């Protein structure tokens, strides 16, 4: 499953870069993120809790920035596993930040994701829309964080 979009955010390129590299801010922006730890310059671990159709998933995740060209481009590999439902998410995300003038930046992203395991066997249809809405929410939160200085709490 591939999702791509572009959003314009009223913030400088550098500000935006700083934000998406800051684990504490990420905790605020990633829907359901409970704890994010920076393991090295490029690696993070964390837990994401989500609920779908009454089922709560607790994904133990690892994120690795496999390519980074501050402040314009980052490529991330992410894996999340929920041992209780034996489900796993594998994702690759590419984000490009471009100046769009007037102090605003254009953030474009391509996220390629696959979800496997017991939850996925109930129907990929269900999981996909949830992931998509979470991605949308993440970028909305990034925008809020930069434009208003605060992200919405867990949606």
């Amino acid at each position, binding site marked *: 499953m591939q999702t791509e979009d572009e959003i314009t955010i009223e913030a400088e390129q550098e500000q935006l870069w700083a934000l998406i590299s800051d684990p504490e801010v990420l905790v605020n922006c990633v829907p359901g993120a409970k704890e994010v730890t920076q393991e090295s310059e490029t690696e993070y671990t964390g837990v994401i809790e989500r609920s779908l159709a009454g089922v709560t998933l607790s994904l133990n995740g690892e994120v690795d920035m496999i390519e980074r060209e501050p402040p314009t481009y980052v490529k991330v590999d992410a894996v999340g596993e929920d041992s209780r439902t034996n489900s796993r998410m594998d994702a690759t995300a590419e984000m490009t930040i471009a100046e769009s003038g007037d102090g605003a930046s254009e953030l474009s992203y391509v996220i390629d994701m*696959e979800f*496997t395991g017991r939850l996925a*066997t*109930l*129907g990929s249809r269900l999981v996909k829309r949830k992931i998509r809405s979470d991605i949308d929410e993440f970028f909305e939160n990034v925008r809020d964080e930069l434009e208003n200085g605060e992200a919405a709490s867990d949606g």
Partner: protein
Amino acid sequence: MSRLRRDERTVQRQSERVVGSDVPKIDAEDKVAGDARFGSDLEPDDVLYAAVLYSTRTHAEIDDVDLSPAMAIDGVECALARPDFMGKFDDRVRHYGDVIAAIAATGPETADRAVNAIDYDLTPLDAVHDAREAVDGDAPTVHPNNLDIAQHAQHDFTIENENYTKNIDDYHELTVGDPDRGFEEADHVVTGEYTTPRVSHCNLDTHCTIAEWDDDTLVLTETLASHGRSQREIAGFLEIDPERVKIKEPPSASSSFGGRSLRKLTVEPVAASLAREVDRPVRLQLDREREFVSTATRHQTQFTLETGITADGEITAMSVDVVTDTGAYPNGVGHVVLKNSRDRPLDVYRIPNYEYEGVAAFTNNVPGGEYRAIGSTQLTFALESHLDEVAARAGLDRITFRRKNLVEEGYVRPHTEVPIGSCGVDDCLERGLRRFEELERDETGDPRITRGWGVAVGAHPTTSGATSEDSSEAILTLTADGTVTAHTGAVDQGQGIDTVIAQIVGHETGIPTSRVDVEPFSTTDRFADHLGSIASRSTYIIGAAVRDAAIALERELHDRAASALDVSADAIEIQDGVAASPNGEGIPVEQLLSPTDGDELEVYGSASSTETPVSYGAHFAAVEVDVETGDVDVLTFVASQDVGHAINPKMIEGQLEGAIQHGIEFALYSELQLDRGMPKNANLADYPVISPKEMPEDVACEIVESNEQSGPYGAKGVGTPSMPPVAPAIMNALADATGNRFRDPPIDSETVYTELSSEDRR
């Protein structure tokens, strides 16, 4: 003298319609009553339940498996990590659904819970998911070339192609005549590329085996239609003597379509390892997702075809290039895919100059395996699509063009000395077309609807053709209650072989079919049949052995009745199980048992054949396309099939109708979708199988009889050979309806719509 007498009687019996008549299936009553018991219905009292930790990585090294949290759970009797399994298991997983560890516990829920408790670490390895990329020198290694796992080692090969360097499961090439000259002589040369989908059998009864050890003999209770091969391969993998593997068939076998022919590395060796460890029977059943990813699918295959023809439609040369995806293990038979796609064009058409190259590659995908007309189904889709394109290029009628080039009985193919035996392909075309025309519909007049029709010819050999000779043996026993029991190598997976055997026994002996019991794959030490019910060989070769035994039984009963009734053996007639003399005196056959027989009269029969008769079909499809949505509806399907001789016409229709179902799925619906080797639709909510609503409104079966000299009563195989022409007939109809050629089924409505609405459409 006696031979003449028997033949006369056979003619007479045929008039009584035993062989050749619609005898109801002998197992139907149990099945409609809900009394049939299949492999997954068996749960011996002391059995332990297995659960398996399957990999969600497509390629990884197993670093560490901590089984202690699982062992701590009450009811867990055994936990094993893959490196500690018996035999050739190593410390690496190679596909999604491969095995990391396994549990045996007192209940299935406990076993599942224990599997979830296992802690493990894997180091992901680079993986390869495309067969063409896998053979390249830069690809990660899945297996070395010429891997030493049984089933793979069919033949030695030398790779002639310098681009094919790695992960090679098998390689074939063939040159006949002078292809370069043949293409030069052509007035038209057409090239096309085609890809076939990774399709699952979707057998409803998921794989289930019960493994137990009797001293050092492994006993497996499950449906495995090919005992000899499975025994050899399981033993080879577990590194034990093949004599030490026994297979017991459950009372009823559920459907297979090739899915139950052979062992699966994720099933029998795993259960065997657990059972050895605990010294108790262990039952391992797959759930639906595992059934998709841990067994086998039809090999995804890529074809490049090139054909040269003269202006008046004579084929001068053909080139076939094949790359097929064996997947992570040689579970199936890359070799057979290559061999069948190599030989099939030559079995159907006169092609004086021919070149073939095929490679089967290991990848980190779900393994490929046998599936109804393995190789032939893939090739026939590509070839019959291609030939429609060739005919169109030359401005020739599709049927006339095919007829001009078809083989016929007695034709000697350029790559083999053996002339073609019975060949009803032309009759199939003629009768099929007539029937198809009868079913033609009036136009709808709706501008949103476009219609088209298609034809495809196909063939598949009876018997596996894996060896130069195929043979079988059968034993018939007559017991004091008047029942005849047939012991054979057949497994009735729904195709109806048990009924055919009963018909043959009844036909030859005069004992009613209702008094014939057929034992599913009898113990293999009583007689030889290493192949079992695969490759549509059951009626042809097992049926022939049964006929041989039945004739012997009949002769023995005649002789005994003759002396009992004091008349000559010639004068005896057996009807309804009673041997009668001309003066009306009769004696039931069971009373002909003598004290020296013991409890039963046993006779033996055998048959062998060096022939590999080819069964032909010509199928016709009419489709309707909703141009606004792209929806394709198969309106009419005619399967015209050469079966040699129809021993039970209704059952043959059932085989043809089932093939139509699977062919429609192949063309329009079904594919196990993998993204980097990970399944996207490994469940029956997302993986489409069709319902009666998707079957054509009009389905017609034309049974053509060509009298195969080497087969019993002239019969040859039907179940697998009826599969290959189905999908290409539909795809050709779709091309006719839309003016667009679709080369990579399954073609869903979105693909059709997108093509029809694209601006650069020709």
